[in-house]
């Protein structure tokens, strides 16, 4: 076993006892990264920065001043602006962009002593569920059980693959409709989307601002608690970031959920759901019951309208957010012909810089916000969103502490398998995850088992707003009961 396979918690202890130095740990990770180009997880490697940060971490450890992530090597999703390091949201339109500033999330991680190994692959502007919309080409899932190369999920596919393949100890992800939880489930790792407003969005390249939230992707629930602690909390630079105290998430992991009420929503039992996912869900329910929780059937009647509402709201916000990519201030500008005016410049730049799925969503968003359709689509979707949130509020008011659902409708599918599919079919991947973003709730994906082929499957727990502490404790119980220890066989 090499040090790159450690969890954050184990590495933290080894570093504090000086059994390993941050430089040694970082060098081990960098070697693993360099040996894994076949996965296409890292798209900009930053070994010089990593070693410099590791040396600084060793100095702090030696001085006895070691914050929570001191010397812990992490991967950073390409969506986070990192000062002086390419940050292009996997889009050609941001080619060459090197921010002059640091996102709040990465700044907090660095303050906590973390080491950045590099930037991680993702779907372009976080729009996708398979990493196939990336300008760098898709990430390959380290889980390989036959000849098929599978998706690591999306949009945080590079983060998921890097954590699952031990190319870092943990990684940042972002989640707008399931982009942390679906890739976590596809790769057998833990991923938590916090309550909207728990983590600052400042310096994270925006997709849909009312839904976007950053979170940890880790090898264990304890690691998720440690990581979330480091990035959560108020930030004056993001007016939607809540000024609320951040509890001690790791201390909340008591493993005791006796008397807690777990809701099982009947609307999540979808037609066409695989029998394996259904059986996994039942097993997870039994695990929580055995741990002393009370299981109750609940109803979330507007569930089926979450996806269509999401695919109005998210593109609408995206069309507005992505208007800034105009070839003037940063990134790509198309070569112009004599006589081309400024509108030609905008149109050519955006046609060349944006990939197909991003163009599609920007145009859908433009349409639903245009005069004459605003009420019929955008306002109606916002009303349905209010009803989806109300469904959850009523269930929580009845005393439900957490909700258990599948994380994804299937295990990881093959790269290219959805190429000829209608875009709407790809959207169905988010069916279990997207409701939470619309309601602003925290949700965590926990690996629970393998399917018949040997691919990982996950379950999702949904928590009350701002109760990540309780949610993580439920996830911890599920993790311990499931005892998921499988790792992908190294083929890369």
């Amino acid at each position, binding site marked *: 076993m090499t040090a790159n396979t450690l969890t954050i918690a184990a590495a933290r202890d080894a570093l504090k006892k000086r059994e390993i130095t941050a430089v040694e740990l970082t060098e081990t990770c960098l070697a693993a990264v360099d040996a894994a180009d076949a996965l296409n997880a890292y798209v900009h490697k930053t070994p010089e920065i990593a070693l410099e940060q590791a040396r600084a971490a060793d100095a702090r450890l030696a001085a006895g001043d070691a914050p929570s992530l001191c010397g812990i090597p992490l991967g950073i999703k390409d969506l986070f602006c990192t000062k002086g390091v390419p940050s292009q949201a996997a889009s050609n339109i941001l080619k060459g962009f*090197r921010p*002059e500033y640091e996102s709040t999330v990465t700044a907090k991680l660095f303050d906590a002593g973390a080491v950045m190994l590099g930037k991680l692959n993702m779907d372009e502007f976080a729009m996708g569920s398979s990493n196939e919309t990336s300008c760098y080409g898709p990430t390959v899932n380290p889980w390989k059980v036959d000849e098929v190369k599978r998706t690591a999920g999306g949009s945080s596919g590079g983060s998921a693959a890097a954590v699952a393949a031990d190319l870092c100890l943990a990684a940042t992800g972002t989640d707008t409709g399931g982009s942390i939880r679906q890739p976590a489930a596809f790769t057998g790792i833990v991923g938590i989307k916090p309550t*909207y*407003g728990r983590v600052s969005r400042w310096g994270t390249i925006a997709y849909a601002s*009312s839904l976007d939230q950053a979170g940890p992707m880790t090898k264990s629930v304890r690691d998720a608690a440690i990581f979330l602690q480091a990035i959560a909390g108020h930030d*004056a630079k993001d*007016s*939607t970031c*809540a*000024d609320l105290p951040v509890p001690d998430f790791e201390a909340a992991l008591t493993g005791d959920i006796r008397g807690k009420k777990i809701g099982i929503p009947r609307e999540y039992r979808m037609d066409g759901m695989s029998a394996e996912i259904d059986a996994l869900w039942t097993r997870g329910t039994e695990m929580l019951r055995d741990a002393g929780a009370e299981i109750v059937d609940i109803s979330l009647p*507007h569930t089926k*309208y979450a*996806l*269509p*509402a999401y*695919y*109005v709201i998210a593109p609408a916000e995206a069309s507005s957010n992505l*208007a800034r990519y105009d070839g*003037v*201030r*940063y*990134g*790509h*500008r198309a070569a*112009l012909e004599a006589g081309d*005016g*400024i*509108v*030609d*410049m*905008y*149109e*050519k730049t*955006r*046609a060349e810089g*944006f990939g197909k799925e991003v*163009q*599609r969503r*920007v*145009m*859908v968003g*433009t*349409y*639903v916000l*245009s005069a004459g359709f605003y009420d019929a689509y955008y*306002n*109606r*979707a*916002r*009303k*349905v*969103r*209010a*009803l989806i*949130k109300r469904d959850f509020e009523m269930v929580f008011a009845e005393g439900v502490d957490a909700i258990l659902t599948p994380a994804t409708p299937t295990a990881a599918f093959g790269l290219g398998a959805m190429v000829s599919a*209608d875009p*709407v079919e790809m*959207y169905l991947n988010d069916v279990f995850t997207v409701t939470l973003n*619309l309601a*602003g709730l925290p949700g965590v994906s926990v690996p629970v088992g393998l399917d018949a082929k040997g691919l990982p499957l996950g379950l999702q727990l949904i928590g009350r707003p701002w109760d990540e502490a309780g949610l993580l404790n439920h996830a911890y119980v599920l993790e311990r009961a499931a005892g998921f220890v499988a790792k992908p066989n190294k083929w890369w």
Partner: protein
Amino acid sequence: MSIDIETARKVAHLARIRVDESDLPALAGELSNILSFMEQLNEVDVEGVEPMTSVTPMRLKRRADVVTDGDMADKILKNAPDAREGFFAVPKVVE
């Protein structure tokens, strides 16, 4: 609601994305499919429901209306595809 080629052309222009004439029929088809997926929302009774404006009930914080940073024109221009004499340069906009 089905999107015709003329509407697709208009939407592409509003979005400031150049779409080749030959690609417009396919685009119109894709947009129509996505919109028909959204039509499910018409089944929901939204009578008397307020459109959501903020997912977490919170008052946006206000800060004092004062200058907190500045004097960084060089940093702001650093990533520009074309910057000259302290300005972003673009094709002429006067018709």
